[in-house]
Structures are given as C-alpha cells and as structure tokens.
C-alpha cells in the first residue's frame, strides 16, 4: 500500500449520509488516559494506560433542508442518546474506516462579516467505547435491489488470517428503503476460511431486522463467541417482504482486544 489521500471520503451519522455537508474531518482520535507511575529509582517517566476514549470532529456547512436530511436538520437538536458516527476513507471494499459510538456535544453556527454562514466544528465523544478503526465491508453505500450476497473481503489484506478468538465488531448504517409498509431487511455477516473453495460461508452474526418504518437507523454489534474467519461478506434477507431498494453501509473491526 502506497501513500494515499483523503479524496472521496464519506461520513455517516446514525444512518444519515452527511458527506455533502461536511467540509473537513478535524479529528479521528483514539486515545487512552494515562497514569504517571514513575518510581523514585527511574530517570524517565513511566506510564500505564487507563480508560480508552475517542473523538470524531468535523467542520460543516449550513444546510437546513429537512427533505434531504441536511446536516442542520439532523444534528442541531443535540440528541442526548448515543450516535454512531462512521468515517469511510473512500468508497472501496476494504477501505479504512473509523467508527465511534458517542455523544454529540455541541452544535453551532457562525456568520462571517463577508456574509458566510457556516457550522462550527462538531465533536462527537465516545460513550462506552473508544474510536474503532476498521475496514469497509461495503464499497461506501451499497444500493440493494434484492436479497443476496455482496462481494467478499479477504481479511489477509488487512493482516488478518482468521482464528482469533478476540471479539469482532460490526457497524451498520441503514440510510434508506423504498417499498411498501411492512417491508423489512436483515443484514447478515457470513464468513469462510477460503472464500468457500472448501469451507462454505456460514452466518456469523446478524444485525437487528429493520422495518421500512424504522429507517434511517444505525447499529453496533459485537460477536464474542465464534472466531471470525479470514473471508467475510455481507448478505441480506427478509422476514416478510424485501423492499424495492435498500441503501446501507457496513464497517467492521476484528481481532481486537476490548
């Protein structure tokens, strides 16, 4: 992998694609508190790590359009519930992602003397989890017109060859559905040792079934029991009727120690 830019990036907040209303990502911070435990007999500082934390900050433009889920319409109310924020470094399968379940702690606007009206930098700070760097299981937003499987990702490309018993974490942003009342979709994670050359794909874990009335929505799930295998892919299915269209994105991080 050579050096790369940040061109064509995406930022999703709780099932809303706000990429068009955001001009810059100010911070993608994964941090630990620290304690100074320097002994009298040492000649340099000794430290141990304490609680993990994370923060995503982004600069934004004023867009109050409710019909198209403009950023002002979605984030100005400062919800007191946790928001799932995911940054996608481009729109390729396997692209680096950073996700954070946290609280949005501010929202503000600034009007310049030249007439510009822009949003102040918004910060989302971790709530229960730190920032989780991972990779995309969908090439940005995926537009589905029927149940089935998406192309698989080879974990060895990101240094994972399978077999780790450490938890695997998945993030889903469900942006939109079209169809009839009662339509629903379940996004599943399937895995295999060898892309089903000998070892068949089986269902590792499923996100909560989403009814068309519940969109947009987002979810973070952790799979702790079954070791995640090297190859992984997304499959979609339905309990009642599959919607006409479904737009969603999935990111993952595996082999981590929480």
């Amino acid at each position, binding site marked *: 992998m050579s050096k790369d830019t940040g061109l064509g990036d995406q930022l999703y907040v709780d099932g809303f694609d706000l990429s068009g209303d955001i001009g810059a990502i100010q911070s993608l911070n994964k941090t630990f508190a620290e304690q100074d435990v320097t002994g009298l007999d040492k000649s340099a500082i000794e430290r141990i790590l304490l609680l993990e934390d994370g923060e995503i900050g982004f600069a934004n433009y004023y867009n109050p359009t409710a019909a198209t889920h403009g950023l002002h319409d979605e984030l100005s109310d400062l919800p007191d519930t946790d928001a799932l924020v995911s940054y996608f470094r481009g729109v390729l399968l396997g692209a680096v992602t950073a996700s954070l379940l946290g609280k949005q702690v501010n929202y503000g606007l600034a009007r310049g003397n030249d007439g510009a009206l822009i949003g102040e930098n918004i910060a989302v700070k971790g709530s229960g989890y730190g920032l989780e760097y991972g990779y995309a299981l969908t090439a940005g937003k995926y537009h589905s017109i029927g149940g089935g499987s998406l192309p698989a990702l080879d974990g060895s490309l990101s240094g994972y060859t399978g077999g780790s018993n450490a938890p695997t974490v998945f993030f889903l942003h469900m942006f939109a559905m079209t169809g009839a009342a009662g339509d629903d979709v379940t996004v599943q994670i399937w895995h295999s040792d060898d892309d089903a050359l*000998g070892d068949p794909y*089986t269902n590792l874990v499923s996100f909560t079934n989403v009814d068309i009335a519940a969109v947009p929505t987002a979810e973070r799930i952790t799979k702790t029991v079954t070791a995640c295998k090297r190859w992984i892919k997304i499959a979609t299915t339905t309990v009642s009727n599959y919607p006409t269209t479904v737009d969603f994105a999935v990111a993952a991080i595996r082999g981590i120690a929480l």
Partner: protein
Amino acid sequence: MKYRALVDLSIRSDKSGWLDIKAGEDFTPPKRMDIPGAIKQGFVEPIEKVKDDE
C-alpha cells in the same frame, strides 16, 4: 453421497456460481467442499446418520 445441511450454507459449485443451501435441506456437495471440516464444524451430517437418529 448426500448430506443434510444443519445451518444455512453458501458454497461455490463445481461449475460456476454459488449453491445456497438452507438448514435442513439435503444436497450433494460440490467435489471441492471440505466435508470432514464441515462435519467437524457442525455444518452438515451424512444422510445415513440423520436417518439413524430419526
């Protein structure tokens, strides 16, 4: 020899394309499928064994 899927499976066929098999379905696995591995992981059982259990 036929096997019964104990979980939903998705495997490459011997030609091109995929075989999507639902749990409880009887199927003839493609030659490339690692049957001992699938049995060990609890994905399939030989039909004969299933019949014995029944």
